[in-house]
């Protein structure tokens, strides 16, 4: 059976993809909040990113440490090829579902 993306998983994956090499907990959350206009808990973002990593849709690696972060490294996320494929598949499903219902005579 194909692995499917749940609603919030898809949003997190889209936000991660749109951020390119700048995706980590803070930026993914900021992107989601800016686009949805609602508050998102940091724990929810990390829980979904972990799940996406287990599914093979993102991979993480340690990034830079900045003084602003108290010298702690960022955990950077990148969308993988299967992740992009899953996003495109979801996009196609959405487009088909959004087609108007045909009128019957």
């Amino acid at each position, binding site marked *: 059976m194909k692995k499917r993306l749940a609603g919030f998983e898809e949003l997190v994956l889209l936000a991660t993809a749109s951020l390119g090499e700048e995706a*980590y*907990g*803070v930026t993914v959350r900021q992107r989601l909040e800016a686009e949805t*206009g*609602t*508050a998102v*808990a*940091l*724990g*929810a973002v*990390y*829980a979904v990113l*972990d799940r996406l990593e287990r599914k093979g849709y993102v991979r993480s690696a*340690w990034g830079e*440490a*900045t003084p*602003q*972060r*108290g010298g*702690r*490294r*960022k*955990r950077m996320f990148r969308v993988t090829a299967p992740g992009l494929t899953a996003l495109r598949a979801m996009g196609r499903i959405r487009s088909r579902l959004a087609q*108007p*219902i045909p009128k019957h005579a």
Partner: protein
Amino acid sequence: MTRLLRWFCDPDKLEAIEGDLAELYGDRRSWRYVIDVVSLCVRQPRTAIRSFVAALVVLVLAGPIGPPDHYIVHATDPAGEFVLEIHQGQAIAATLDGARVPERDLVQTGDTLIIRGADNGADFHIAIKPEGGIQWYPRHFSSR
């Protein structure tokens, strides 16, 4: 809160999480910070049992508090998505499919909220529950 986070949180993820919190809040402490720490304790646990303990603590603390003073509801039905912002039981803002509803179209009487024209042109009735949350009859999909 830092000790709580270090006790509950998966040590492999702690560096990134503490860094994110420092970047977001610095030395400032707010309710948003507390919510983030609690959500991280519950959802990024060192062990499953610690996640359970964290969830239990949240439930015990939240139990006597009653309905939240201010909350946001995200809901979807066949007609689309809508979001309500509720403050002290009163709907103060709403969006339909991401578009803000003009204030004049939000009419609330007691626990009943009406969004004018939001149900395929007809009024959309929503019950705001005193204990928090909403109840409504799903609107039908419209191809318009």
